[in-house]
């Protein structure tokens, strides 16, 4: 990685980390839901600073450039976050359905 690339990736990682931390502080995001995002930010920082690890991962994936490895890392995490959100939505849909049914049943009994 060139110096230029490293500075860019490092700023991106730190930027993500700070934004997420601030959102948790303002309670716009729960700690639980921020976990994978924090990993994204910190992970990029670690990969940029720990050159040996980055090179090892690059060899592992068969990529030519180290930047590709950081890219893949980002995409994998985003896929995981999306999947996690979908699972949560499924669960919430089920809970909302259950709630609506309970409300309907309670209302009948009141009459």
């Amino acid at each position, binding site marked *: 990685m060139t110096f230029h690339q490293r500075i860019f990736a490092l700023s991106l990682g730190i930027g993500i980390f700070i934004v997420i931390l601030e959102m948790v502080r303002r309670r716009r995001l729960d700690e639980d839901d921020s976990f994978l995002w924090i990993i994204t930010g910190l992970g990029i920082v670690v990969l940029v600073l720990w050159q040996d690890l980055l090179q090892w991962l690059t060899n592992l994936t068969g990529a030519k450039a180290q930047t590709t490895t950081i890219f893949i890392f980002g995409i994998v995490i985003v896929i995981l976050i999306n999947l996690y959100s979908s699972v949560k939505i499924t669960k919430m*849909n*089920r809970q909302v*359905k259950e709630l*609506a*049914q309970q*409300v*309907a*049943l309670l*209302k*009948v009994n009141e009459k």
Partner: protein
Amino acid sequence: MDDLAIIIPAYNEAGRVASTIDGIRKFTDADIFVVSDGSTDNTVNEASEAGAKVIELPFNLGYGAALQTGFKYVLKKGYRFAVQMDADGQHDPSAIQSLIKPVYDGETDVAVGSRFLGGGDYKAPFIRRAGIFFFAVIASVFSGKKVTDPTSGFQALNRKVMELYASNAYPADYPDADVIIMLHRSGIAFKEVPVPMKRSVGKVSMHGGLKPIYYIFKMLLSILVTLLRSREEGRI
């Protein structure tokens, strides 16, 4: 009959639901429950004026979930048998007796009314018929029984089946071949009974626009995961 409940899921069926209820009254004195699935028209008033007990969902949940609400209610109230039918007059109430009889007699747990067994002169559009046939073949293969009308919402069932339908295993949108396969794998006996059906009048079909394509995908996936799940899971 004190132990029989008729369950009718209804979403914006004003103008049709009252005549459906009147029609049912001619053939049975069973208690009638209309589940209004977040209707925004006069469905609730019409149904209760026609003498049905109305269960009102606060917003639209989908056909399967509305039906399930009805099952949960009648289970709680201790009914031993239920007949589910549509609000739009598509299902002929004269068939209720022939549908419930095999369930009453303990011959089967659930009787599914089929429009394709010569009970009437139902003429569906070609695409719809092709879709029903396709899933009927799949349901037949995996349930080891001849299934002709897996989409039928005209069914008579006992408590055992109601309990399965009230569980999370029951789909919130449109129960189809996946439920037939689930019944089979849960060790529930089902049989088809010929019933006359009419095409519903003045109503937009549940399966319009691009939805059929999504529906086919969703149903194939649903059937696949039903088959992948362990047999024990569906057992109650």
